[in-house]
C-alpha cells in the first residue's frame, strides 16, 4: 500500500483538474493575445479562472495575477513592492521562519541596500507581535509573514498582524505567503488588511508550474518579467492558459469542501499525534497543538533516529514523508526554521514531517502509525555513536 503523507511538498493533481488541463492543451490552444477567435476563447478561459479564484478570496478578478507558482508570487511581492516604493522607505520586515522563496528574496533586497528585520518566533513557531511593533518604523514599506509554516504547521495570527501594521501606518504593505494556508486555514483578506497574498496551485491538487499573487487594487509593483505586456504589463509572457485554468478549478474545488476537509484532516491529525505520543517514547510533536495548528502538517521529532534514515525506512514500507531538515554528516545543515523555533541541532536533525490532504484516509494514518512503531525501535538500536 502506498501512503502519501508529503502533501505539504506537493499534492496529487485532481482528476477533473487534470482532465481540464488536457482538454485545454489539446482543444483550447489559442494564444490569449491573438486577435482571432481562438485567442478570444483562450482569453475567456483565463477570465473564468480569475473569477473562480476571486470568489474564494472575495476579491475582484482584476486583483489576481497569475504566475509560475509560489516562488514567483513571493518574489514578485517582495521585490516588486520594494522596488516600486523604494523612494518612500527602505525597510522590510519578515520572519525567521519564512520559506526560502521569501527569505531569499529578502536577502536579495538586503544586497540591494534595503534593511530587513527578521522577527523571531516562539516555541510553537508563532511570530512575536511585540517584536513586530518594535520593528515597525517610519522607513518600513513592507511586512511579509507566512500564513502557515511549511515545516511546523504553525498558523500565524494574520489578522492581528494586519491590525498592528495598519495601526502604525496604513501605507505599509502587508504580504502574506498563503502557499500552505490557502484552502486549508480560513483567512479574510479584507479583515486582515492583506495587500498581497501568494498561492501555489500544486499544493491544492492543481498543476505544478502555476500559481497566483493577489495584489490589492492600488498597490503598485515593478514586474520581474519584461516582454509582451501580458497581464497588465505586470507579468509578460504568453499565459499558461491550461495551468491557470487548472489553478482556477483546483481553487474552486478546494474551497467547496474546505470546512469538511479541514475537520476531517484535523481529526486524523489528532489521531496520529495521540497515537504517536501514547505508543512511543522520546517523541515530540513540534509546534502548536492540533486545535490551533494547521490541520495538514505534523512535525515530529523522533529522538535517537536521524530523519533521513527514518524517512527511507518508512519509504521502504510505502510511506512517503519529508525530512524536517536536510542533513548529512559531511554537510550538517540544520533547518533554520526548526532552529528558530528553538529546536536543538540534534532534535532538528531527528525531525520528520507528515502532511495530509483531503484525500488522506484513516486507514493510511493507522498504517503510518504502525510503521513508525515498527521501524523506530530497530533504528534506535543502531545509532551513531
Amino acid at each position, binding site marked *: 500500500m502506498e501512503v502519501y503523507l508529503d502533501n505539504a511538498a506537493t499534492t496529487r493533481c485532481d482528476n477533473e483538474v487534470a482532465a481540464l488541463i488536457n482538454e485545454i492543451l489539446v482543444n483550447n490552444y489559442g494564444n490569449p493575445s491573438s486577435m482571432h477567435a481562438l485567442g478570444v476563447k483562450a482569453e475567456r478561459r483565463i477570465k473564468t479562472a480569475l473569477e473562480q479564484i476571486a470568489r474564494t478570496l472575495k476579491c475582484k478578478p482584476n486583483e489576481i495575477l497569475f504566475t509560475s507558482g509560489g516562488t514567483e508570487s513571493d518574489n514578485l511581492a517582495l521585490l516588486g513592492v520594494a522596488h516600486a516604493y523604494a523612494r518612500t522607505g527602505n525597510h522590510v520586515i519578515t520572519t525567521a521562519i519564512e520559506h526560502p522563496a521569501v527569505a531569499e528574496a529578502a536577502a536579495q533586497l538586503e544586497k540591494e541596500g534595503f534593511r530587513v528585520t527578521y522577527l523571531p518566533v516562539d516555541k510553537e513557531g508563532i511570530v512575536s507581535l511585540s517584536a513586530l511593533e518594535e520593528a515597525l518604523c517610519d522607513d518600513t514599506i513592507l511586512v511579509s509573514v507566512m500564513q502557515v509554516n511549511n515545516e511546523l504547521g504553525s498558523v500565524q495570527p494574520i489578522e492581528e498582524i494586519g491590525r498592528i501594521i495598519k495601526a502604525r501606518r496604513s501605507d505599509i504593505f502587508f504580504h502574506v505567503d498563503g502557499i500552505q494556508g490557502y484552502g486549508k486555514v480560513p483567512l479574510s483578506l479584507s479583515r486582515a488588511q492583506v495587500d498581497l497574498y501568494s498561492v501555489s496551485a500544486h499544493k491544492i491538487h492543481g498543476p505544478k508550474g502555476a500559481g497566483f499573487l493577489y495584489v490589492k487594487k492600488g498597490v503598485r509593483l515593478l514586474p520581474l518579467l519584461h516582454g509582451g505586456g501580458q497581464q497588465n504589463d505586470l507579468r509578460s509572457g504568453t499565459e499558461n492558459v491550461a495551468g491557470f485554468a487548472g489553478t482556477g478549478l483546483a481553487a474552486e474545488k478546494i474551497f467547496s469542501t474546505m470546512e469538511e476537509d479541514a475537520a476531517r484532516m484535523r481529526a486524523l491529525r489528532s489521531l496520529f499525534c495521540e497515537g504517536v505520543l501514547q505508543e512511543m517514547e522520546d517523541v515530540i510533536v513540534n509546534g502548536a497543538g492540533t486545535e490551533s495548528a494547521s490541520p495538514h502538517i505534523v512535525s515530529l521529532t523522533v529522538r535517537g533516529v536521524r530523519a533521513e534514515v527514518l524517512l527511507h*525506512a518508512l519509504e521502504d514500507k510505502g510511506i512517503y514523508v519529508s525530512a524536517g531538515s536536510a542533513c548529512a554528516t559531511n554537510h550538517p545543515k540544520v533547518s533554520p526554521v526548526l532552529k528558530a523555533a528553538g529546536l536543538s541541532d540534534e532534535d532538528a536533525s531527528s525531525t520528520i514531517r507528515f502532511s495530509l490532504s483531503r484525500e488522506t484516509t484513516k486507514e493510511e494514518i493507522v498504517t503510518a502509525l504502525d510503521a513508525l512503531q515498527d521501524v523506530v525501535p530497530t533504528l534506535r538500536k543502531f545509532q*551513531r*555513536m
Partner: protein
Amino acid sequence: MQFSTLLISYAEVALKGKNRSFFEDALIARIETVLLNCTGSFRVLRYTGRIYVEAQDYDFDETIEALQHVFGIVGIAPAILMKRIEKTDGVPSALPDTDCIAEEVLHFMREVYVETGRATAAHPMTFKVKCRRVDKKYPLTSMEVDAILGEKILDAFDAFTVDVHHPEILLHVELRENVFIYSDILKGPGGMPIGSNGKAMLLLSGGIDSPVAGYMVAKRGVHIEAVYFHAPPYTSERAKEKVVDLARVIASYTGGVKLHVINFTDIQMYIYEKCPKDELTILMRRYMMRIAEKLAIDSHCLALVTGESIGQVASQTMQSLTATDEVVETMPVFRPLIALDKQEIVTVSEKIGTYETSILPYEDCCTIFVAKHPVTKPRVDVIRKHEVFLEEKIDALLERAFATGEIIDVR
C-alpha cells in the same frame, strides 16, 4: 576553417617495441568507438608512428572533446593533409613540391591566424616553421624547407615576424607518406589505451576519492568494473544515483563500467551488534574487500582499486590498511591516491568532472554508524579474533548479499 584531418599523437604507446601494433590497435579501436557517438563521418588511419582521423561534416568541439576522453592520446592537431602524388607511367610517386606546399601553408596561416584576427599588422605574432622530413627522398633538406616557407609567409602577410627561439606559432610541416601542416596541438589525456592492460574492480563510494582512483587506474589502460555498497534505509536511492553518475564519468573515458550494487545493511548491522563499536569501520572494510575480491574473481578482474590515502581517516592509517589488505588473498590492491593530498585529489576530480557530483550531501554506508573514536591502530590479531564473533551468521549474510546484488551497466 574546417580541418579535414586530426593528427593524433601518442607518446607512450610508441615506445612499446614489438607490442606496438597491439597498443595502436587498441587506441584506434577506442577512437573509432568514441567517434561513433559524434556527428560527422570519420575514418581512422595509421601510418608509421602516426594515427590520424579524416573527418567530414563534423562538429569540431564535440569531436575534440570525445577524443580528449581517449586514454593514450597525448595531442590532437587539427591539420591540413596533402596527399602524395600518385605514381604515373614510370614516374615514381612523390610528395608535392615546395610551391604547392607553400600555397597550402599560406592558406593555413590566413585562415587560422589572419582571418580570425589572432595575428594582425598592429599585433603581429612570432612564428617559426619546423619541417620534419621523414621521407628522406625529398629533394630539399628540412632546413631548406623551413627557410623557403618562412620567407613565403613573411612575403605574403604583415601579421607575422620570425622568432626561432620562442615562437608563438610553431608551424609544423611533416613530410611523411603525405604532408601534414599544423600548428595548434590540443592536449589529450595521455595514458594508455583502454583494454591494453586488463581489468580491475574499483570500490566506488560516493566520495571524492574513489572516482579519481578509478580514473587514474583506467588511464593506465585498465578496464574498470566497480562495486558500490548500498545500505538502505540508511543510504538513500539518491546516494545510489549519485554513484551511478560518478560511474558514468569514468565510463566516458573507458567506454562502460559494470557497476555491482551490493546491499550491505544486514552485514553492517550484524557487525554493529556483535563487535566493538570502535572497530566497526575496519571490520566493515574487511568485508567489503572480501566481497569485492569475490566479485573481481568472478568477472576476471586482476586487481582491486581503492581511493585510500595514507592517514586521511582512521581506516586509512598504515595499520588499518594492513588490516584491510590481509583479507585480499589472490590479487593486488591498487591505491593510486596513497600519497596524494586531499587538495591534489580534488584538483583531479574537478578536472575529470566528478567533483560536483561527489560533494552532493548524501550519506554513504561508511559514514552512517561511524564511531566517535574509531581505532586508528588496529591490531590484526585482535581484529581477527573479533571476527570470530560473527561466525554464526556471516556466511549466510554474505551469500545473501551476493545473491541480491544488482548489476548496472553504466555507459
